[in-house]
């Protein structure tokens, strides 16, 4: 859609090797966004993470993964949140334009516009938008990227609370830092920066020590998702005019042929003698 330069927009660099799993980000997110606590049980989902999934009350959470390293049990983590794509699928499919990629970086949701069709939930490759299933007239809920804090000159709540792993700043600088870290410690990191190209580039980029799919990262296309629908939708005006025009032409030709045939018959009638016409 928009060909805006995203390099100066704010992005999260999340270095999962530095994450301690303290879940300060989860708490800070709940506090800043005033989200209700969820009544959960331990081990209700896969592994140690709690709550079991992101929901209307949980915009971000830390996923845990056990693995063995040198005979020792170790934990690896993955912070799940909205990826704030450079060209967001949710914004492209929303019929009322309730999602917007802001110039500051976060993708925000305008609840006053939303009609609740849930197309954003189908479209999002990361499964981020969640629905208020408990309500009669539900809305969509998702990470705001703390747009209000960012416009006020603060950093997002999770980035502020995180003691180790999250760096927040212009996207090109974040990518530079990530590349430097990978180059400096090739033994520590997987040689991939997740989010640099995924879904056409996102404003949340990750570094890990374990393969991304093992941590629960979704394998997504590198093309911006709106392109997939736009390659069909761009033909809409042409299709309308082609079908309308060709059917109009076709019926005009057919009606004209009928008219000429009738006229010819009438003319033949005129040619016949008057006494026959009277009958």
């Amino acid at each position, binding site marked *: *859609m928009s060909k805006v330069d995203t390099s100066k927009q704010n992005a999260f660099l999340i270095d999962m090797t530095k994450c301690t799993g303290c879940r300060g980000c989860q708490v800070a997110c709940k506090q800043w966004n005033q989200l209700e606590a969820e009544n959960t049980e331990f081990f209700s989902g896969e592994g140690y993470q709690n709550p079991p*999934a*992101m*929901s209307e009350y949980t915009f971000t959470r830390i996923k845990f993964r056990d693995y063995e390293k040198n005979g020792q049990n170790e934990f690896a983590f993955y912070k799940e949140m909205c990826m704030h794509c450079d060209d967001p*699928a949710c914004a*492209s*499919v*929303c*019929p*009322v*334009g*309730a999602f917007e990629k802001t110039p500051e970086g976060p993708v925000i949701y305008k609840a006053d*516009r*939303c*009609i*609740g*069709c*849930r*197309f954003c*939930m*189908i*479209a999002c*490759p990361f*499964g981020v938008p*969640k*629905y*208020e*299933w*408990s*309500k*009669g*007239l*539900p*809305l*969509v809920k998702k990470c705001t990227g703390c747009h209000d804090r960012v416009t006020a000159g603060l950093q997002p709540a999770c980035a502020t609370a995180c003691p180790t792993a999250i760096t927040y700043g212009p996207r090109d600088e974040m990518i530079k830092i990530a590349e430097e870290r990978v180059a400096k410690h090739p033994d520590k990191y997987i040689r991939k920066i997740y989010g640099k190209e995924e879904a056409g580039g996102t404003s949340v980029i990750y570094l890990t020590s374990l393969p991304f799919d093992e941590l629960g990262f*979704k*394998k*997504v*296309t590198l093309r911006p*998702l*709106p392109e*997939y*629908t*736009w*390659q*069909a*939708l761009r033909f*809409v005006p042409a*299709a*309308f005019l082609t*079908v*309308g025009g060709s*059917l*109009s032409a*076709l*019926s005009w030709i*057919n*009606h004209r042929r*009928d008219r000429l045939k009738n006229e010819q018959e*009438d003319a033949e009638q005129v040619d016949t003698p008057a006494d026959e016409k009277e009958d």
Partner: protein
Amino acid sequence: MTAVRAVAKEIKGYHAFVKFMIFLVVLAAVASLARFVFGLGATTNMDDTYPWGLWISFDVVTAVPLAAGAFTLGAIVHCFNIKKLEPLVRPAIVTGFLGYSLVCVGLVLDLGQPHKGWHVLRYWNLHSPMFEVAMCVMAYTTVLFLEFLSPVAEKFGWHIPLRILRWLEMPLVILAAAISTLHQSSLGTFFLIAVDKLHSLWYNPLLPLLFWVSAICCGMCIIIVEATACHKWMGQPNEGVLLRTLAKILPYTLGFYIFLRVYTLMALSEGPFFDVPVFTLLFFLELGIGFILPFLMFTSNSVRNDDRRRVIAALLVIFGLVLNRFNVSMFGMMDPNHMYYPSIIESLVTIGIIAGHILFFVLIAKYFPIFEHHPETVDYTIPDSFHKIDDGKPKQEKEQKEVLPEGSAASELS
């Protein structure tokens, strides 16, 4: 009070089947009330993994092509000038109008914020297939309403509106076909965004075109089924001769669809195709039983001429289309570890919508002249209310032509 009593007396006289349909519709109305009182989460089995359930898969994605008969037949009769099929047009338009009205009902129930539905008209997003479908469905429902007004105007003898409607007929037919092309195909565009979610047996970039072509096939088959059912259960004359003509067109459209489907699978989709046994089964059921088998049947002259086998072939195409839409919008995106199946309330609402369609069709056919429509008695030329044009024909004959449809409508009343 007398009016209420008259209505009650009228309903008492209905056939038991119609009464059963009324019961199902009332049940669905109660169920949809529950949806607003208790919320979508409590009444449906939809969740964050399956944000779209039965209501979108059937009430919208499947019901729209099932209502495609109106535009398909309109174009065949008026644009391709196969005028003898004219008697089938009105029932098709009524079916289409009912179908689209009920799509709107289903959509309103499914929306989280139905009172904000009009926002589509205010905040345009040209990049959204949903925006396009919403606009088209609104526009097309209006077009179908105008087309549906013709029998209403005939019934009540509204002369001027009838003339305007007749004059508008051709533009409306062309508009209907153009709008339908857009939204039938855009329903396919919906799922182009589900690029890593929809299984590769169904995901391909030509999904919009496939949706459009299959909708046209299905539209004709619906007309065959509908006319046969009206003959069997509603005491209408057998339109077998006309349906034979329609069945002659079907092998071409079905053949084109099958060719496209195989071509997209071979050339445009990226495998793996047959990694999930259930999907493989669904795919072969859909394409084999639902499209290739009826294609072969319709190519045979004896099937086209036989009322029973023709309607079976048509039903197979409808089965194929319904399965295809469910495969694309529901089954093909399912995770075997966490399945979706519709809740009782979701099912009741959808059953009620289908029952409502049948019920309203029967009632409209009972009170309005939709079958007793004789094209040879209708003057389709531009109205000449003031008789300014002297076309050389005797005046008496012309006036007779205008009066006739009303006359036939009036005679139905008595």
